[in-house]
């Protein structure tokens, strides 16, 4: 690790200025894409998010933000604030497509692009100065190209570290207030000399790892800004927050951020949650939802080129009490039917169904399946064998995946908890052996 850090330092030294990290953040991405597709929405308040009774706002245009609407606000509240806004359900596929175009554009600047979300990425431009000029020139050029080629606006922060670049892009954004929208700088460069002062005026909560609880604890000791944090000794912070968090915050507050721009960002977990319009009380219906959600998560794993070792089921009841159950497998899997099988087994573990408000399925312990999204195909799966025919669907990996899952479920719920579908599943009826298995 220290070798890598050292070589990154050497690269930065060679580039001269040291300001090689860019953070690009699209302006209210989902809403902006909707406006792009329907120019009639331009200038109007646009809100993208769940439109059902329990939906929340995913993205709001600056016009909507000026009315007090912000992300994660219940849609119902947003409607109260601004009934005339356009409320759109949004299309993830469309945003992903625009995001892909954005990523392609970014990789023409440097291969060292680390996407953080659909609308956000870090770039390390230390190797791009020869062709494209200084970091500042690159930042302005990028903004221009995003506008020209994608028809969208963004802000770019430039700094010595990821932390500074990220805070700088935020500071370069337009600001929506009750009196209207104040345009932002678009590009903000934080030179090394100005770094401490820039960091210092941010609230401590702006640092990654500082959530509401930590901020509260810090506030009790009179620490509210990064500047306050920076003068506290490392030892005191460690006493206050524990060894790892204390050391981490001390480093960040003093401008040390060792995180490199990682071109292929490791996905740590994938998941999906479904909030029901009305609470679900029927066991079969709930299991169908859980299976469908699990299948969707598996499909996202496959799209991301990863397989998961751990499947977690989350259930929130009508009274907002929440339980999670997870099962870790001996080998990673990415098959929809197997995910569904595990999630359904975890659901059965929770016992009789009472009113359920939300179910979620998460995949973690992810490993790359076939190297950066590539996968070696197998002869036997391509041969058009009928996978349900006896013995004919023979493929080595498929069988081992099934066995892995079967074994894990049996290990936890008893030998008869799961078997080949043909042996236990009668359409429309819950297999009796499943219940026996649960008691076992």
């Amino acid at each position, binding site marked *: 690790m220290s070798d890598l850090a050292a070589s990154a330092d050497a690269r930065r030294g060679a580039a001269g200025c040291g300001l090689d990290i860019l953070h690009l953040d699209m302006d209210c991405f989902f809403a902006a894409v909707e406006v792009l597709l329907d120019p009639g929405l331009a200038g109007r308040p646009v809100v993208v998010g769940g439109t059902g009774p329990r939906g929340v706002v995913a993205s709001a245009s600056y016009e909507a933000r000026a009315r007090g609407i912000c992300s994660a606000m219940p849609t119902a509240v947003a409607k109260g604030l601004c009934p005339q806004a356009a409320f759109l359900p949004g299309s993830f596929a469309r945003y992903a497509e625009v995001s892909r175009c954005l990523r392609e554009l970014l990789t023409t600047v440097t291969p060292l692009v680390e996407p953080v979300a659909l609308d956000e990425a870090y770039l390390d431009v230390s190797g791009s100065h020869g062709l494209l000029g200084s970091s500042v020139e690159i930042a302005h050029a990028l903004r221009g190209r995003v506008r020209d080629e994608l028809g969208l606006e963004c802000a770019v922060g430039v700094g010595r570290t990821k932390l500074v670049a990220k805070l700088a892009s935020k500071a370069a954004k337009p600001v929506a207030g009750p009196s209207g929208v104040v345009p932002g700088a678009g590009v903000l460069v934080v030179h090394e000399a100005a770094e401490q002062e820039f960091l210092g005026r941010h609230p401590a909560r702006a640092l990654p790892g500082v959530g509401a609880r930590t901020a509260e604890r810090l506030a009790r000791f009179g620490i509210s800004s990064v500047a306050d944090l920076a003068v506290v000794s490392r030892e005191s912070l460690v006493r206050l927050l524990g060894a790892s968090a204390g050391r981490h915050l001390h480093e960040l507050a003093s401008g040390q951020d060792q995180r490199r721009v990682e071109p292929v960002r490791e996905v740590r977990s994938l998941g999906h949650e479904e909030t029901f319009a009305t609470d679900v009380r029927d066991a079969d219906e709930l299991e169908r939802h859980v299976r469908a959600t699990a299948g969707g998560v598996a499909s996202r794993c496959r799209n991301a080129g990863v397989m998961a070792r751990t499947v977690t089921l989350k259930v929130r009841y009508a009274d907002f009490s929440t339980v999670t159950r997870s099962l870790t497998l001996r080998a990673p899997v990415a098959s929809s039917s197997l995910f569904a099988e595990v999630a359904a087994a975890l659901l059965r573990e929770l016992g009789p169904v009472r009113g359920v408000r939300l179910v979620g399925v998460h995949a973690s312990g992810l490993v790359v399946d*076939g190297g950066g999204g590539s996968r070696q195909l197998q*002869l036997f799966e391509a041969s058009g*064998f009928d996978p349900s025919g006896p013995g004919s669907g023979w493929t080595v990996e498929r069988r081992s995946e099934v066995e892995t899952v079967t074994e894990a479920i049996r290990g936890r719920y008893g030998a008869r908890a799961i078997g080949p579908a043909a042996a236990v599943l009668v359409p429309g009826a819950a297999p009796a052996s499943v219940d026996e298995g649960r008691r076992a």
Partner: protein
Amino acid sequence: MRFRTERDGLLEALSTASRAASGRGSGGTSTPSLQLSLHGNHLVVTGADPDLVIEVRSSVSGDSDGVVLVPARLLVDIVRSFEPGAVVVTSDDDEVRVTSGRAEFTVRIPSVGEVSRLSAAESEGITLPAALFADGLRQVVRAALADDTRAPQLTGVLMVATDTGLRLVATDSYRLAFRDLSGVSALSPSSEVLVPARALAEIQRLVGTRTDASKDAEPPPLVFHHGELDAVFDLGEVQLTTRLLRGPFPDYERLLPASYPSSFTAAREDLAAALRRVRLMVRDTKDATTPVRVSFGEGGAELTVLTAETGRASERVDGAFAGEDLTVAFNPTYLLDGIEAIRSDSVTIDVIDSSKPATVRAADEDDYRYLLMPVRVS
């Protein structure tokens, strides 16, 4: 037991037999051993594990008969360290003395035991054309699965009697190779045996070293016989007995595409050399390897390897291409394995599309096929 022999011959016998003394089957606890057995002037060195037995016979100058078990690795190392010349081996109840020149080793004998034995094969022996058989093995064994944790039957080579002779088939589920040896009848009509690739790799090596050793390039006769459970390959002074694998072997014939819309033919060495070069950029991880993208087009193919961490390599190889332009990604090692298996100077790659099996074959011969599944890149 006491005998005197030459260092080179003894080393050859010990190292050949020790290739079967893997230490497997003893729970991995005991040291792999070799058995030396002397009758008159005949020395038999036997190395064995539960799946494979190799016996090497040689002539020595014997003084007194006997049987002794010695630690395989140590004895090979000792004899290898000697200068060429006479070696004397003497044993009593609990040690073996090995001397050569002024060097003298006294080796403790492992606790008394026996090397494992396989049951003798039943069928009548059939003489195989050793050179042809070994060439077929060279082409086919490479496609077998190397470790048996996933599917033991794929660690074998299927020997199957065909209308015209003998066919050798192996697959690790990613690629499949088969070679037809016409006019070779080793099995009764339409019967088949599944022989561990490990044993056959030894046969290939033994035939190869013996062909090299005899200056007239005529390998010794290779006699094959088999029973229900075991098969024996007899090369005269070396006899190899292997346990047979149990199937079912996949129904591979259904995998062979009926026709290919596109095919590319190039000089084998050009293609292999270009692949070896671009492969330098490949980064293997535990789970995957970097694919080589092959873009076929008129007049040639472009090979490209691209990784986020190391960079990019590409090379164009001239060749004749018939079909629609297309790009297919392969595991570079698997592709190179197929190309290197070809004997003739020009190699043909037949392709359907980026997710169907491709075939590597000689441009002018029909007896060998190497099927290879592409890598899907997203």
